Structures are given as structure tokens and as C-alpha cells.
């Protein structure tokens, strides 16, 4: 077990290093460069000044050299300076991360609960009416464009009904807990709806697989009612693969968060990454992307560990 964790952590560190190098290079290929942006705001800059600036920022050095510099600084916690926010990257990043955590965790919990209940319900009687309705709902969930779902929610609940605010995290001059919750309702609902579809399909498939197994059939033959069988035998065994899928998907939720946060103007990680890429804020974009990778890697690691913990038959090597 200890060896397994050690190996997986080492692998993850290597993947992170490779990723950071690739993303560093990609960011370098984005339009413009930092010096161009600086001289744009200072028309009097002479070529000598530009060259001097390049030397100061190390932009005249080969790429691998610059990457090494960046990496050495990043190791000490110095992720550079955000151009747009005029603040150190970490100070922009952390509040955004916190905001995203609120959104992601709430919608994640909501969709896990809903998908477990309706997935099990669907598996109870395959091809029954409930199963067909739930399947249709699940397919809708995986097929709907998230941004359009958000748009429709805004159209109905903000523009037409005025139930919830269309954007932001709190009203100006307010900011109480209730006000924040009101602002989170729609983003959470959108993200939860989008994720519940896929999750439900996994739960249903896994439940069906488990219900086919001999020990469940034995329990049924002994006269245990369907709900009893599901609760005492089905769940624990069916949820093992599902937990892995949940954990694996936690990282990919970032994509959904990006869209949702952009649509509802929530200052979270997703919107921050998008804005920084579009606004040529190189340091912030780089750090944001790497953070997103890190979250995915950590959730993968968590998935593996959860798998071994839930199923005692699996020995992790």
C-alpha cells in the first residue's frame, strides 16, 4: 500500500512536470508577448529600452532556460505577477479557488445524491416506466450544451420570473449568507443537472451488473424484497466502481465550472482561466491551468485509493 502510494505520487509529479513544460510552451505561442503589451502603454519606448526590458525579463534567453527559471521560482511559491489584476498570481488564485470550491462541491454533492437515488430506482425494474423516464432524463443531462442550459435558466428564472439574480455572487451593499446562497442557486443547479445525467447512467449500469450476481439472486430467492436487496446487498457493491467514476469526473467538472462561471459572472477559477487566456495574462493563465491539472491528478489518485479501501479484494501494488 505504501509503495503503491509512493509510486502513484511519483508518477503524478512526473506528469505535472511534463504538463507544466507543455503548457508553458503553449502559453508562449499565444498572441503578443509581455513586452509588446508594456510598450503599448508607453509609446515613447525606444528600441534600446525594449531590448533592455527583454534582457531584464529574460525574454532574450532560450525557452528551456526561461522555463527552468519559472519552475525554480514556482517551487518557492513565487508564481509571478498577474498583469491584469496587478497582484501576485497566488493572491488572485486563492479567492477564485475558494469560490469555485463552493460551486463545485455543492453541485457535486447534489448530483451524487440525486444520481444515486434515481439510478438505483431505475435499476430496480429495468425497462419499466420509471427506468425509461430516468433514462431519458440522464440522456438529456449528458446531451445538453451547458452554456445553453444556463442561458435558458437565466431566460426563465431571471428575466421572466425574477426569482434569482442572473449574475454575480452577491448584490451590491448586501453579501449576507442568504444573498450569497440566492446567487449560487442557478449556477449550482445548472452544473448539477449537467453532471447528474452521466452519474445516473453509471449508477444504473453498476446496479444492474450487481443485481445479476449470484449473491443478490440468492438473497432474492430467500424472499427478501427488492428494496431490501438493493439497500443491503446492491449498494455497497454497486457503488465501488461508481465512486471511481465520481472521483475521476471531479477533475473534468472544471470544464463545466468554466462555462457556468462565465455565464453567471462568478469570479471563480474557471472564469479566471478563461479571462486570463483571453486577456493575455500569461502568468495567471499558466498557474490556473496547472492548478486545474493538479486537481484532476489528485482526484485520480483519490479514486484509486478509494477503490482499494472500498473493495478489500483489491490489493494495491
Amino acid at each position: 500500500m505504501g509503495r503503491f502510494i509512493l509510486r502513484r505520487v511519483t508518477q503524478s509529479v512526473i506528469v505535472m512536470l511534463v504538463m507544466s513544460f507543455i503548457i508553458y510552451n503553449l502559453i508562449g505561442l499565444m498572441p503578443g508577448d509581455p513586452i509588446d503589451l508594456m510598450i503599448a502603454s508607453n509609446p515613447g519606448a525606444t528600441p534600446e529600452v525594449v531590448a533592455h526590458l527583454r534582457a531584464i525579463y529574460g525574454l532574450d534567453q532560450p525557452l528551456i532556460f526561461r522555463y527552468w527559471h519559472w519552475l525554480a521560482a514556482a517551487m518557492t511559491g513565487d508564481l509571478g505577477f498577474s498583469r491584469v489584476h496587478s497582484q501576485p498570481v497566488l493572491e488572485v488564485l486563492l479567492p477564485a479557488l475558494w469560490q469555485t470550491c463552493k460551486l463545485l462541491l455543492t453541485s457535486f454533492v447534489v448530483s451524487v445524491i440525486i444520481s444515486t437515488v434515481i439510478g438505483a430506482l431505475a435499476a430496480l425494474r429495468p425497462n419499466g416506466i420509471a427506468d425509461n423516464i430516468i433514462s431519458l432524463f440522464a440522456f438529456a443531462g449528458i446531451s445538453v450544451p451547458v452554456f445553453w442550459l444556463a442561458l435558458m435558466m437565466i431566460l426563465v428564472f431571471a428575466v421572466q420570473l425574477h426569482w434569482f439574480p442572473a449574475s454575480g455572487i452577491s448584490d451590491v451593499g448586501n453579501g449576507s449568507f442568504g444573498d450569497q446562497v440566492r446567487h449560487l442557486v442557478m449556477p449550482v443547479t445548472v452544473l448539477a443537472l449537467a453532471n447528474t445525467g452521466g452519474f445516473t447512467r453509471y449508477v444504473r449500469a453498476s446496479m444492474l451488473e450487481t443485481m445479476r450476481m449470484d449473491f443478490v439472486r440468492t438473497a432474492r430467492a430467500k424472499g427478501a424484497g427488492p428494496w431490501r436487496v438493493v439497500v443491503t446487498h446492491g449498494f455497497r457493491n454497486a457503488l465501488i466502481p461508481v465512486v471511481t467514476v465520481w472521483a475521476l469526473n471531479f477533475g473534468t467538472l472544471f470544464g463545466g465550472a468554466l462555462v457556468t462561471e462565465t455565464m453567471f459572472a462568478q469570479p471563480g477559477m474557471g472564469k479566471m482561466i478563461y479571462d486570463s487566456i483571453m486577456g493575455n495574462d500569461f502568468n495567471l493563465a499558466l498557474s490556473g491551468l496547472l492548478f486545474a491539472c493538479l486537481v484532476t491528478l489528485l482526484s485520480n489518485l483519490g479514486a484509486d485509493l478509494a477503490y482499494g479501501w472500498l473493495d478489500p479484494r483489491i490489493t494495491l501494488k
Partner: protein
Amino acid sequence: MSELLGVDHVTVRFDLGGGGLFGGKKRVLQAVVDVSFSIEEGEVLALVGESGCGKSTLGTVVAGLREPTSGTLRFRGKPLTAEMRREAQRSIQLVFQDPFSALDPRMPVSSIISEPLRIQKLGSQASRRARAAELVEQVGLPVDSLNRYPHEFSGGQRQRIAIARALAPDPKLIVADEPLSALDVSIQSQILNLMKELQEQRRLSYLFISHDLAVVNHLVDRVAVLYLGRLVEIAPREEIFRRPSHPYTQALLAAVPRIGHFRERRAKNIRGEMPSPLNPPPGCVFHPRCPKAQSICRESAPLLEPAPERPQQLAACHFKD
């Protein structure tokens, strides 16, 4: 008679991982250990043993599907080098145990049978088709089978198709890996008779791999017995059936029902299960199960030597009969 194929001190090891940076203990499985024998032209040699004794691995080595870890193969008296591989690939063909896995479900029978010719680029397309038609009849299937697909045939019919494929390049040796054990008893004898007929007509050699001595009884010329990857006895059929020399062979034969004999209880002779090839016992590998075992058996491994007064019958035992 001249030697068709020789197997010379062949050993096959599987590296089961481990070692390396995070690995833990390195584990090596010895599937075949220092095995030597030869097959003459037109000879049928049976390779028998329990499952897991390495007989299939040895079969894949002979068929050229696996390189031995050490040791060499001889083909027609010469070492089997890379240049000779092509000829050997044509002259040595395979028939497998599971007729459902042996035929590509997406290919019509005519393509299946002519495949070895296609791979070896032998003949024209028309001549290959003609050859397939000829073979399909020889193995006792209707000619209209050619355009059908494997799922339309039963297990026995599929095994006939597999045999036809093996015959296509006019081979000298067919390695048959338990070709009967997946079939019903009534069909087993049909296939066995077909194989015997073909062998006599074409003077084929067979390396017939089986776990059951009774099945091969009237097809084979010689029998080689494998235990835990080691050759423990090799002898002409009559001799091995009349007077098996190695205690393991004796136990195997005792388990074979024969007319006029009662099937002896296996437990009387032989105890326990075959040990793991990952961790073979020291000395003679058979000693933990052997009724004759003495202290010498735990210390030194016996060599394969002629049985008393029977120069053709070789056995690896300190106390051979």
C-alpha cells in the same frame, strides 16, 4: 527414418515482473526446463502431462510462436536460423484446442483455409481457391462450406476447417494442442480418425499435445511425459504402456481406464497437487508426491537415462523400473 525436428536443451522462463524501481521481489516462472527430444519424419509424438506442466508452452516454441529463453531447435538436422524460419513456418502448422477461437469470425471459410498460402505469398489467387476447395473435401466438409462463415458451423466442423487450414501449405509437421478436448466424445473419435487418415496418406508428423493418455493411445508412435516443465519419460508407445518406468507415468497410466483392468484409485499412488512452477521443489521435482521418494530424491535431480534393459525408454528417476 530421418529427423524432422529436434529440440535441444530448451528452457522457457517467464519474467512475471517485480524488480525495478518500485517492484518488490522479482518473480520468474520456469515453464519449460532443459527439454530435449526429436521428431522423425512421419512420426507421431504425444506430449502428455497435467495442465500447467508446460506442454502448451513447449508446443508454441516448436511452432515458432515463442523464442526459447535458452536452447535451440533443429530443422531437418540443421539449426533453425532466421533464414530457415520461412521454410519452417510453412512446414510446421498448428491446430488448437478451442475451435471457437481458432477461426476468425469475420472471414469466410475459403479465406481461412487459404490464409497460410496468402501470408507466404504462395500461388495465385485462383490456385489458392482451388486448393481450399480440394482441402475442404479432404477433411469431409461439403464444398459449399467455402463461402460460409465460422458461426454457421459446429465445433467438430470448425476443427475440420482448422485442420484444412493447417494442411494448406503442405506441411511436414502439425503441432496439435489438445485438438480433441473441447469436443464431444462422439466427435472426438471422428476427428481422431480424420487425423490418423491424413497422417497415413501424407506421411505427416504430429506433435500431439494431450493431458489424456487414453485418447492418444492408437494414434501415436512415441510418448513424452512432462512434469513441471521437465521431461520425465520418453519412450515408444508399446513400451510405455507395457511397463512405465517413471512413477509419475505409472500414476498417469493407472488413471487410464483399460479393458480388462479396473481403474485404480489415483490417490493410492500419487498425493497432493502439482507444486507451483514459481517455486519448484529441490532435487527431483516429483519427490513431494512420489511413493518411492528417498533422501537422494530431495537432493539431486535425476538425469534422463535408459530404463533397465530398454535402451529406447528414457526416464528421469533415481529408482526407475
